[in-house]
């Protein structure tokens, strides 16, 4: 009798291990757009090499980009972005570390679009700020896609420059679009 109970308890434990097995979704080719147009001239760029990972069980999520990977329409603007504003030699990376708050509501086995809220720390130009935003997580054939949109106040990140508030908007709109592999 006792033996059976031990075997049972081990079995249960084994099953719980299986249940607990966390899955990490990752991508290296996520997209990140930003738009900081303040005047007539469009000040916008895209980065197609967003590195992102998230864990389905805990909702833990990270995003990382190389600042020099942002592509502008105008080369001179790109040079100024790197050299004068982002100082990308000194601060080559920008990243986000946080959690998908309501990850439990997402059923990865069922296709569909789930609203999510993400909270965490965004580090740009070496300055970390708390950010919270809502977005969506879409599951299609077991592969999740996260889409989010939020704004950041440029001056909150210690970025200085002549044109912030004029040609460059005070707030930059950021859009994220990451298709994950499993």
């Amino acid at each position, binding site marked *: 009798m006792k033996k059976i109970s*031990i075997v049972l*308890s*081990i079995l249960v*434990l*084994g099953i*719980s*291990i299986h249940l*607990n*097995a*966390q899955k*990490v979704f990752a991508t290296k080719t996520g997209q990140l*757009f930003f*738009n900081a147009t303040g005047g007539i*001239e*469009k000040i*916008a760029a*895209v980065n*197609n090499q967003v590195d992102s*990972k*998230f*864990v389905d069980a*805990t909702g*833990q*999520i*990270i995003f*990382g980009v*190389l600042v*020099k990977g942002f*592509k*502008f*329409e*105008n*080369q*001179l*603007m*790109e*040079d*100024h972005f*790197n*050299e*004068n504003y982002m100082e990308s*030699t000194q601060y*080559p*990376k920008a*990243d986000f*570390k946080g959690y998908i708050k309501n990850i439990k509501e997402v059923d990865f086995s069922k296709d569909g679009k789930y609203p999510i809220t993400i909270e965490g720390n965004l580090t740009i130009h070496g300055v970390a700020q708390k950010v919270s935003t809502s977005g969506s997580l879409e599951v299609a054939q077991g592969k999740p896609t996260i889409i989010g949109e939020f704004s950041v106040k440029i001056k909150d990140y210690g970025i200085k420059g*002549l*044109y912030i508030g004029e*040609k460059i908007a005070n707030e930059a709109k950021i859009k994220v679009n990451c298709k994950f592999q499993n």
Partner: protein
Amino acid sequence: MQIKQFGIFITIFLVSFQLKAQNVDLFAEENNKKVSDIVTSTFKSTRIVNGQSIENVGAGVMDFRISHRFGALSQGGYNLFGLDQATMRIGLDYGVIPRLTVGVGRSTFEKQYDAFLKFKILQQQTGEKNIPVGISYVGSTIFKTIKDASTSYTPYITDRLSFAQQILIASKINDYLSIQLSPTLVHYNLVDSAKIPNDFKSLGISSRFRVSKRVNITSEYYIRFDKLAGYYNPLSIGVDIETGGHVFQLHVSNSKGMTERTFINETTGSWMDGDLCFGFNIVRAFSIRKPKELRGIKW
């Protein structure tokens, strides 16, 4: 019995340990992945003063460049210190791909037309791949269209051509200082007499020094190894000022030419005699073709 219980305890302990190991912590994953960082903005413009810098025009971008050179300050008040005698060059440079720039220009001096191509052979990088210098090749052709003085010699059309070949070796040492060496070979299809060689070797030494985020001091000097008599080594000192979509380059130089053969080998002024000319370049960049990353995006 006690041994049995101990066994169970160990098993549970091990299992729970395994459970713990299953917890992934993405934040703790130190992002040690090293990446190569391309060095950009070695110089602020595609020209240092007169000579080519290692910078290329961005892919799909067209630079409209107006270069102006006034006469020598030593001419005195009658010519308003050289302002009466301006020469200029209008040029268009286009970035075909990030590594390749082509350009054409027209100078008032000798009514020269010129065309060049600049190709980046080696890109300066830091990080995973450390390449301390960048190397580019520049080839340019200069065609003068000014009417020949009538002599007994009947010129060929090709006599009007001269060529310049340059290798640019540049290094951005830090955000504040960049240097460039430019070994140059200029070939004249026609020279004044048989005694004069057709090929002229020289070495350019240039630098950029950052004063503030938008202001840089540049200098450019060419040492001539083969000399045409009566001409001087060109030395130019300039200031690059950046505003939004423009770069202004203001400078003083003893050279009035703007094409390689003219400013390297045919500099008429001497710094010692005060034959300094004030000049400026104005550049406006136009985006002609969107980078492929940006096509089809709705903002």
